[in-house]
C-alpha cells in the first residue's frame, strides 16, 4: 500500500512525449493488471499500482467497474489518482461515502466485493503477503506500514489480484510475516481454515503474470510480458519458480500495451502529478 514507485511512470512527465511502441515495465504491469478485471466487478482498491490499474480499466474497457476504497467511498470515479485512499476526489465522485466501520462490516465482511487488489512488500510462492515487517516483528530490520485493510481484503473478497515489482527480495520463498493470507505456508491452510473465497488467483509483476496451480496452489508463471525471458524471471524470483509449460500447460506471452491503454494511463498519471504537486 505504499507508493507504486517511479517504475510505473514514463521518464518524460508530459503526457504527449512518449513514443508509441515503447513503454516501461511498470506501465506493462499496470496495464496487464487492468485487463484482468471483469467489466461488472466490484473491486476493493489499494493505493499505488492497484489504483492505477483499476482506474485504467474503468477508463478503457470496463466503464461500469465499481471501485471501493477503504475510506468508505462506494463506486468512486476519480479523475486523477488519489495520493491517499481518503482524498476528497473519491468522496465527491462516489455514489455514497459510508463510515469506516460500515465499510469493513457491511461491505467487505458482508461479502459484497468481488475483487481485492493488493500490493505487497513480500509475496511468497503460495501467495502469502507481507506488508508488516522485514525481520522480526519484535526487532525489525525494516518496519513497514502494516495491514490496513489488507488482511481482510485477502480473506473476504471473492478473489484477489496482487501487483508487485519483480525482485528476489520481493518474491520470496517464505514471507517474514503473513499480513494477508494467500494459500498459507504450505499452500493448504486457506482451504483447511474453511475460507471459501478464492484467494490470490493472479499476480502481476513488471515481468510476468503468475497464477496458482489448481492442486498445490504454488504460484506458476503463466505469461511473460513482451521482451521478457524465462531467465530474467528466474533470476528475479526468490524461489525455484515454475512456468506453465513445465506443468503441461501453455506459457503465454502478454499482449503489448495498446496505444489507447498507454495514452489513457499516461494522461491519468500526468493529471495526477499536476494535481498533487500543489497549486
Amino acid at each position, binding site marked *: 500500500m505504499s507508493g507504486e514507485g517511479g517504475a510505473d511512470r514514463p521518464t518524460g512527465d508530459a503526457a504527449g512525449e512518449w513514443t508509441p511502441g515503447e513503454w516501461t515495465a511498470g506501465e506493462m504491469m499496470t496495464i496487464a493488471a487492468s485487463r484482468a478485471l471483469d467489466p461488472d466487478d466490484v473491486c476493493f482498491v489499494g493505493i499505488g499500482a492497484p489504483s492505477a490499474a483499476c482506474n485504467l480499466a474503468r477508463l478503457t474497457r470496463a466503464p461500469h467497474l465499481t471501485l471501493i476504497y477503504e475510506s468508505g467511498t462506494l463506486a468512486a470515479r476519480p479523475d486523477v489518482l488519489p495520493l*491517499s485512499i481518503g482524498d476528497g476526489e473519491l468522496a465527491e465522485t462516489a455514489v455514497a461515502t459510508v463510515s469506516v466501520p460500515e465499510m*469493513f462490516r457491511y461491505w467487505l465482511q458482508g461479502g459484497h466485493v468481488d475483487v481485492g487488489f493488493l500490493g505487497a512488500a513480500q509475496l511468497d510462492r503460495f501467495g502469502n503477503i507481507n506488508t508488516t515487517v522485514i525481520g522480526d516483528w519484535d526487532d525489525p530490520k525494516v518496519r513497514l506500514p502494516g495491514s*490496513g485493510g489488507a488482511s481482510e481484503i485477502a480473506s473476504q473478497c471473492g478473489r484477489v489480484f496482487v501487483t508487485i515489482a519483480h525482485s528476489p527480495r520481493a518474491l520470496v520463498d517464505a514471507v517474514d510475516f503473513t499480513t494477508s493470507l494467500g494459500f498459507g505456508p504450505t499452500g493448504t491452510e486457506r482451504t483447511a481454515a474453511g475460507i471459501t473465497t478464492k484467494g490470490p488467483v493472479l499476480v502481476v509483476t513488471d515481468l510476468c503474470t503468475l497464477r496458482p496451480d489448481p492442486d498445490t496452489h504454488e504460484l506458476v508463471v503463466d505469461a511473460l510480458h513482451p521482451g521478457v525471458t524465462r531467465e530474467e524471471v528466474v533470476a528475479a524470483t526468490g524461489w525455484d519458480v515454475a512456468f506453465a509449460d513445465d506443468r503441461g500447460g501453455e506459457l503465454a506471452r502478454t499482449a503489448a500495451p495498446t496505444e489507447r491503454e498507454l495514452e489513457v494511463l499516461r494522461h491519468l498519471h500526468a493529471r495526477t502529478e499536476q494535481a498533487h504537486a500543489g497549486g
Partner: protein
Amino acid sequence: MATFPTLHDAVADAVHDGDTVALEGFTHLIPFAAGHEVIRQGRRDLTLIRMTPDLLYDQMIGMGCARRLVFSWGGNPGVGSLRRFRDAVEHGWPHELHLEEHAHAAMASAWEAGAAGLPMALLRAYQGTSLPDVNNRIGSVTCPFTGEELTAVPALRPDVGIVHAQRADRDGNVLVEGIIGVQKEVVLASRRSIVTVEEIVDDLAAPSLNSCVIPGWTIDAIVATPNGAHPSYAHGYYDRDNAFYMAWDEIASDRERFLAWMDDHVMAVSA
C-alpha cells in the same frame, strides 16, 4: 453538554500525562492543530490510538509524547514510510514505543463496539495471518448458534477522543461531511471529547436529514480552529495538501531536520 473553550484550555483540561488518547480522522479531518497543542503542552507517556498514525502521530512520536501506539496502518499514504514512527520502532528514538498492532477491520469494529458501549467487538478477521502471534489482545468467541469461531478484540474506550469536523452550531451540534471515518464513534466511545471545527455557525445547514451529525450533548469541548486539519483537509473548506505529505518524507528523514521543523512550525506557534 458542549462548552466552547480555547484550544489551549480544551487540551489542558482533557489531556494528561499517561492518558489513552485518540486523535482520529481517516485521512480526512485529522485534528492537526489539536495534536500540535498536545505537543506544545509537553504531554508524555500517552497511549496513542489511530487507525492510520499519519504525519500527526509521526510528529507526536518524534516529539516524545507517546509510550504506546494502537494502530492498523503506519505509513505516509501514497508516499511511503512514516520516518519518525520507524525511527522509534527500529531504533527507540526518542524512546521505546510499544505497539499494539491491528488491521483496519478489527480496529473499525473496535470503534463501533466502543461507541456501542460493549466491552468487545465481534468480527471475522485475521484468519491465517501472523497478527494474533504478536498481539495478545486478539481473542475469539464461539457462536452459540453455528459453532463458528469468531474473532474478538477489545472495544476502544479512550480517556480522550479528539476529532476535527467542518462546523458546529451554537448548541454544539457538529456536522461531519465526506469521508466520515470513525469521527462519530470516537466521540461516543471516549470519556472526554474535543471537537475542533472550521467554524461555528448559527445554522448547521446539514444537507440531509441523515447527515452525520454529532449532537452537542455528547461532546465536552468544541473549539473553532480554522484550518485545523491542515495538511489533512476539511471537505468543502480546503483540499488535502498532498504536496506537503510528499515534502514531509524528507523533513522527517533526519532527526535534527525534524526537530528544527517542529520548533519553527509547532513549538513557536501559539494556540
